[in-house]
């Protein structure tokens, strides 16, 4: 810390004003993030996508679930006024379907991220903090999961439970969570182990903090940042994985709309009608890219060592 900032801070203190420079890891990170073009761009993109997922009717007046909006004789029509992306193989409005497809991608991506972060995070915290025994067992279990090729594993899980009554969206979330939590587990475990060797944990113990307090007040807040970073980056990956599963026919099922499903339906006629494949693919790529960019920006802000 330079003496200049110190002097300024002292001066600020004397004037009884809220100092301009924010303090603390999160406040510093926010201060830093606001100045990054990559962060701003990804936040705007994600904002639009979230809006699209929550209120698709803001973007299009056509309801793609209404069969009357489709006209089979106009199938694969190129863009016309009122149908900016043209029509798909069934003659339905491609723009409306692409917009409505955002919801499943975003919902599945977020639910999976939340589930993996919570499950992996809690288990990681326990493994690192609780006992060597728990750590050894959980670490071996995650290694087994790491050995499973992700798409193949998710394909297997999704196709096994495909005929059950489970909602197809929840099934995708379930399959991806089963294969995704070990990543959050590892990151959390490593972060907690690092935090545990810090002096402030010893100091807290020396001043009478019990294990619960150490875990919740000292380890968790200090180990959270890397888990948040990896989760943000993974969110894009989960959205891509959902598309892959839907493409392979074990993910989201018609009549639900998913970009992966749309790509699958359009691929046979791609050579003479590319647009029904191009638009959902474009939206998918931009969404995944936006989340990965956001994750990168957050990582740079939260991990000063990489700066």
């Amino acid at each position, binding site marked *: 810390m330079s003496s200049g900032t110190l002097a300024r801070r002292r001066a600020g203190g004397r004037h009884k004003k809220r100092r301009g420079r924010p303090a603390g890891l999160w406040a510093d990170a926010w201060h830093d993030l606001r100045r990054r073009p990559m962060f701003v761009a990804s936040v705007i993109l994600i904002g639009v996508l979230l809006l699209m997922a929550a209120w698709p009717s803001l973007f299009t007046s056509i309801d793609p679930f209404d069969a009357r909006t489709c006209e089979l004789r106009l199938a694969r029509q190129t863009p016309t006024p009122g149908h900016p992306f043209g029509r798909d193989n069934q003659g339905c409005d491609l723009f409306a379907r692409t917009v409505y497809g955002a919801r499943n991608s975003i919902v599945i991506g977020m639910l999976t991220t939340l589930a993996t972060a919570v499950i992996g995070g809690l288990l990681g915290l326990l493994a690192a903090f609780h006992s060597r025994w728990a750590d050894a067992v959980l670490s071996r279990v995650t290694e087994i999961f790491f050995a499973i090729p992700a798409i193949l594993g998710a394909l297997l899980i999704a196709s096994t439970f495909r005929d059950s009554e489970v909602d197809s969206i929840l099934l995708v979330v379930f399959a991806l969570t089963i294969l995704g939590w070990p990543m959050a587990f590892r990151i959390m475990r490593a972060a907690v182990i690092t935090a545990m060797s810090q*002096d402030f944990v010893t100091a807290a113990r020396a001043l009478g903090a019990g294990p619960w*307090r150490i875990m919740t007040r000292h380890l968790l807040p200090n180990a959270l940042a890397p888990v948040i970073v990896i989760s943000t980056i993974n969110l894009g990956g989960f959205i891509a994985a959902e598309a892959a599963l839907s493409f392979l026919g074990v993910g989201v099922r018609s009549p639900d709309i998913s970009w992966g499903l749309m790509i699958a339906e359009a691929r046979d006629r791609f050579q003479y009608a590319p647009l029904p494949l191009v638009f959902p693919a474009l939206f998918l790529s931009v969404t995944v890219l936006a989340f990965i960019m956001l994750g990168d920006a957050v990582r740079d802000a939260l991990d000063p060592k990489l700066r």
Partner: protein
Amino acid sequence: MRTATETPLLAVDDLHVEFRTRAGVVKAVNGVSYSLNAGETLAVLGESGSGKSVTAQAVMGILDTPPAAVTGGQIRFKGTDLLQLSEEARTRIRGEGIAMIFQDALSALNPVFTVGWQISEMFRVHRGMSKRDAMKKAVELMDRVRIPAARERVNDYPHQFSGGMRQRIMIAMAIALDPELLIADEPTTALDVTVQAQIMELLAELRRESGMALILITHDLGVVADVADRIAVMYGGRIVEHAPVHDLYRSPAHPYTRGLLESIPRVDLKGRELHAIAGMPPSPLDLPGGCAFHPRCPYRRAACASDVPPLYQVGWTRGSACHYWREVLDAGRR
């Protein structure tokens, strides 16, 4: 002075601590004994690896076990052997009965919470106070450890304070619950010389006000002279000499202490070569047999390599773990 009937506040008796590492068993503490009465200040002096911090951590019960293991001895706090207590009972004593401060106050404070939050946590957790009352107490404590503009700085984060101020915050947390014993593990090592003096002065002042006992762990003879009542000098996991502070400075009774005193730079001897103790401190992995200091000792005889010297009684108030303490003492008086 001490009387035999009085139960000391803290009595460490023949403490042994080992670290089981891949490289072998490290005997960090080999039969350390000392006792401390209420309100007394004991300085524990030694270089790194002498076992002074490990002893303190064993007293606090914050050694990482494994790899560390207390393999023998007793630590009696107000008559109760802490080593026999359950972890819950020890947690209750930490902070309330015995508190500790550390060398590097920046890393000893949680970076994600404000200092006010961290100080007030002591009152919320241990005293069940409301947030508002606890915060008030935190400001009072910050005043007490002389942090300027405490009320305005209570919501600042640790990294916004200077080194000396951080150590004051650490001290505020440690004295929050009025412990009867405060262990300060090299509290001034990371600080500027001028700030060192201020922190030592603050500790001495707080001790006078509250009547708590103080154990000062340091490798710096100069730091403790004004504050400590007694000094215990450690080497190779043992106490090699203990004495009232002025006796020790005037006439050391162990060659190691003598070497330490002679290696303090002095203005009146400017230009002369600085005295240094010959050789290197022993590796705790492989302590020399007999007296651990014998390979570096100018007084060594054949017996030193084979016979471990007990702590010989020197007069009424002192002890020296040197077979030839009389010689050392006489040499110092000359």
